[in-house]
Structures are given as C-alpha cells and as structure tokens.
C-alpha cells in the first residue's frame, strides 16, 4: 500500500477532530459547543482505535483456532506476513486502546450531561445561552454573578 493510504485514516480522524474544535471555537451557543466537544471526543477515540488496528486482525475476543470459524479466519491470512511479525494462528487487534476508549465514552456522556446541566442553569440565571451575552451581562452587573436562583 502507498504511503498516503497508510496514513489516510489518521488524516481523516484529524479532520474530524478539527471539525469538533472549529465548532467549539466558532459557536457562541453553549449547547452547540458541547456538541462540538462531543465530536472532538469521539474522534479522539477513533484515533486510538485506528492505532490499535492490526492488518488482517480480528476482534480481541479469543476464538478456538481449530474451530470452523477460526480456520476460516486463519485461511484469510498471508502466512509469510504472519511469520514475519512473529504471530501465530489468528491475528487479533490490540485490546488495550479498546479498554481505554470504552470507559472514556461512558465517562464522556456523563461529563456531557454535567456540562449541559450547567448550561441549563446558566440559561435560567441569565436568560441566554450565548457565551458573549453572558459575559456582557457579567460585566454590566458584577455583583449578581454568583447569585444564581
């Protein structure tokens, strides 16, 4: 495979990440910012998972190499390739990044909920969700900033 194809995955993930970053910076609306942050986070996860992929590999759930399924998988592999990398039998992708991202996704939605809850309270206190307007209101009445409902 060519150099570009080898790295296209990373480049695409970086583009997604920057899409999230652009949404976070460009949008004044707090909820839209949270959506951007969620996209950014998801694409970070995608990057980790792309690093974990092994060509010709399969999911890191052990299967019996002697079973019909295992033999079918092993038959797809290039034997020279397997031998060159010191692998034996069925090739599995790297499980460790999967673990990291699995928990990160659930933690991500919880923290997203916290951010949204704060946004809801800001809206209740200031009557707006636009970061600029909130900052302007803060500057006008410095005393009332901490006094939420």
């Amino acid at each position, binding site marked *: 495979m060519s150099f570009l194809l080898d790295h296209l995955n990373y480049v695409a993930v970086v583009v997604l990440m920057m899409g999230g970053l652009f949404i976070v910076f460009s949008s004044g609306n707090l909820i839209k910012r949270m959506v951007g942050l969620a996209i950014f986070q998801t694409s970070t996860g995608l990057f980790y998972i792309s690093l974990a992929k092994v060509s010709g590999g*399969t*999911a890191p*759930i052990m*299967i019996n190499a002697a079973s019909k*399924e295992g033999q*079918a*998988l092993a038959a*797809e592999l290039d034997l020279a390739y397997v031998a060159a990398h010191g692998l034996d039998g069925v090739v599995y992708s790297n499980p460790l990044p999967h673990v990291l991202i699995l928990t990160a996704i659930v933690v991500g939605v919880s923290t997203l909920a916290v951010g949204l809850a704060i946004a809801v309270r800001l809206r209740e206190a200031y009557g707006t969700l636009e970061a600029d307007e909130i900052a302007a209101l803060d500057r006008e009445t410095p005393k009332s900033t901490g006094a939420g409902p």
Partner: protein
Amino acid sequence: MLLLAAAAGLMIAMAMMIVRAILGPSHYDRILAANSFGAKTVLLIAVIGFVFGRPAFLDIAISYALINFVTTIALMKFFRYRSLEAPLTPPEPRGIGEAGGD
C-alpha cells in the same frame, strides 16, 4: 463477494439517508432519515460480521434495533409535544371509560 456487494449497497442507502437528514426540510423528515439510517445500520453490522468472519457480534445489531426505537420516540415526542416527561395517553375515551389504559 455477494455480501460485500450487499454491504456496499447498504452504505449507498445510508449515504442517501444522510443527505435527507441534512436537507430536511422538516424535522419529521430528519427523524425519519435517522430512524431509517438506524435500521440500515443494524443490517450493515450483521452483514459486516459475516464478511469479516466474526458473525458473533450480532448483539450490537440487536441493541441498535432497540435503542434506535427509543431515540426515535424521544425525538418524535420532543418535536410533537415539547416535553420528555409527558405521558403518551391513549386517545380520548369514547364511552369506554379508562379501558385500554394500563
């Protein structure tokens, strides 16, 4: 090879759904597109499992089929009633009192 063609066809259909979800024009069109997209995703995951020799991952497809429904109901309820907490009551009773409730 046939299954690979099937996966390609499903992805084309999914791309069409994305176009509909982006274009709208009404929110109901978008929900429809998202829901239909979910149904195609279920099929695609099943097919991909067979293409790559690990068909045991159908659990994911099953959970999609279920979750997709819940999300569609939530979106529908949001657009229709502007509320997530309201119950979807049965239609006005026509002489049969509370029958058909729970």
